[in-house]
């Protein structure tokens, strides 16, 4: 589904990714772990086409398409979704209007039927119920005055509504208490099926107790320095970053 080959990228003069190779198949969940500044968020943003980063070498292929010619909105319409680490606030724009615009833009691009206001309401209510989000959030402005946890929950509603082929969760667990974490994980697991895939970016092993990964990759210094199954996450938890750094030097 997703093939990242020898990817180098920078922002300004700073090189952040230094040769990433990653292959993700349908139905798989990949966890990407690593310390701050290792390039986890950069990789997430580059996959969805953030204009601030320059790709200097390498290639990203998604379902057979070379993504280099695709704008951010086209990538979204192809089924790429990023749950932002820091979701932005948009004053004056209600969640429900935003969600409907997004869902219908994606559906239209995919040649699927768009939803009218009434159908959309029942559609989105169901998605809210999956992650125990109060419906009143639909009528609030996007992320305005939301707590950290509420913002993350809002990202999950968007994800469930957009039904992406590949969802990237960038530190969705940060700022969440354990109950919220469980609820969100349940919602995420609802999306899992043999046809789509997920990248879970996280600092901690905690989230992976609830969203079980098929593969775990350790990112450090802009490179994937180790890959394994979920036991790698546990090992990492136990041995800490010092162990990582020694790996990096090898």
């Amino acid at each position, binding site marked *: 589904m997703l093939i990242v080959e020898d990817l180098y990228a920078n922002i300004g003069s700073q090189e952040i990714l230094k040769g990433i190779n990653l292959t993700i198949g349908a139905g798989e969940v990949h966890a990407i772990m690593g310390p701050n500044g290792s390039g986890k968020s950069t990789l997430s943003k580059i996959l*969805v086409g*953030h*204009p*601030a980063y320059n790709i200097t070498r390498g290639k990203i292929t998604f379902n057979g398409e070379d993504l280099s010619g695709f*704008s*951010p*909105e086209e*990538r*979204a*319409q192809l089924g790429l*979704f*990023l749950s*932002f680490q820091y*979701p*932005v606030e*948009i*004053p*004056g*724009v*209600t969640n*429900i*209007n*935003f969600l*409907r*615009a*997004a869902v219908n*833009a*994606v559906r239209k*691009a995919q040649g699927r039927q768009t939803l009218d*206001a009434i159908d*959309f309401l029942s559609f989105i209510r169901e998605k809210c119920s999956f992650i125990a989000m109060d419906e009143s959030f639909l*009528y609030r*402005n996007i992320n305005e005055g939301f707590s950290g946890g509420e913002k993350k929950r809002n990202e999950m509603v*968007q994800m469930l509504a*957009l039904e992406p082929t590949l969802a990237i969760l960038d530190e969705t667990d940060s700022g969440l208490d354990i109950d919220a974490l469980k609820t969100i994980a349940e919602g995420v697991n609802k999306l899992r099926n043999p046809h789509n895939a997920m990248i879970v970016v996280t600092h901690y092993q905690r989230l992976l107790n609830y969203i079980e990964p098929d593969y775990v990759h350790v990112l450090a210094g802009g490179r994937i320095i180790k890959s394994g199954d979920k036991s790698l996450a546990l090992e990492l938890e136990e041995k800490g970053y010092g162990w990582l750094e020694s790996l990096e030097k090898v």
Partner: protein
Amino acid sequence: MANQDQLKSWLDKDYEHGFTTEIEVESFAAGLNEDVIRRLSKIKNEPEFMLKWRLAAYEFWQSMPHPEWSTVKFPKIDFQAISYYSAPKNLKDGPKSLDEVDPELLKTYAKLGIPLQEQEMLAGVAVDAVFDSVSVATTFKAKLAEYGVIFCSMSEALQKHPDLVQKYLGTVVPFRDNFYAALNSAVFSDGSFVYIPEGVRCPMELSTYFRINAVATGQFERTLIIADKNSYVSYLEGCTAPMRDENQLHAAVVELVALEGAQIKYSTVQNWYPGDAEGKGGIYNFVTKRGLCKERGAKISWTQIETGSAITWKYPSVVLRGDDSVGEFYSVAVTNNYQQADTGTKMIHIGKNTRSTIIAKGISAGHSSNVYRGLVKVAPTASNARNFTQCDSLLMGPLAAAHTFPTIDVKNQSAQIEHEATTSKISDEQLFYCLQRGIPQEDAIAMIVNGFCKQVLKELPMEFAVEATKLLGISLEGAVG
């Protein structure tokens, strides 16, 4: 950054309403003197007091220097190069129904998306359409007459209700008020007149669509709205204009009078030709709009969406003379390319317990300049006066400018005045967030802009909200919820 380019293409959309209607026009030759004013008054068969007032205004105007205090810049206007009267010729006798209206004109309205017939049937909006200087179609007269509401052209009001006109005309904006008010008083061609009798809630929104058409014809509208005791009226004013190379002057005067317990809601969507991308052409919109809360418990509310004109220079104001009276001003001013806007409001508190609210949103893009200029004045008599002011500016692109000049003049210690101001940019992160959700760039910008203006847009009557959101390039917001 790529976003800036895409942003620019959205901003560079051609003016959609740029077309000209071919209708025979009977015009005066260019030039202004006493004789022109006498001829104008005679054509309109005006009562003697009107001619006298016009001539007095003209005499005073001649003694006035052109005002230079604003930040707007434009070449000196040659007032002798302007024609002061033009009328759609074949409508001279006045149509009895829409069937008699020039088909070309109806087509013009259709292009603007405001077919009269449809409005009549579906929207229930009475329309006093102004095409150039003479009213061409007035609808729903019968229904309004049932309630005793008078809604007609100023020319007709001068024939049928001269006493009312004489009693109120110039009482809110005297001809000595300012240069363009004096000029308007001398040469105004037509406009709308509204009278709502005591205790009547006007059964429909009253609406006027303006359109400047003939080449080099200044348009001098004069509107007078009187809401008698405990009455209510909502008035809609909207306008678009064809594409022209020459600058066209528009110097209107709008006067509102609200008596005891009366409410007037005045909404404007202004979409005149703003000039081309190089700043060539476009309308000069120099308007004096003022409301008087004359008696106790009166309320006047201005809502304006200003997207057009090369230069917008106007300050819809409220004089809060009656105790417990309320003034409101909700404004969105959008400038792009080389447009200039110097707009805001004045809230003059004179009565006790008077309250005012000002919400002004300025959006500037391209090389444009957007100024909010406001005055909140509390007289010694205005005990417990309250004002809340919020001015927000949104900048799009690196070359646009936004300025805020609020003046607060308080002469009574019990007054409470609050002022908030912000300046922001559409952030790349906001835009990217929308794009990542699959929303196309153009829709995303429209959505963010619309959100920024929401506090003002929600003050518009439904009929207008749709057009206003369209003007801001919005497709979704407002359709849901």
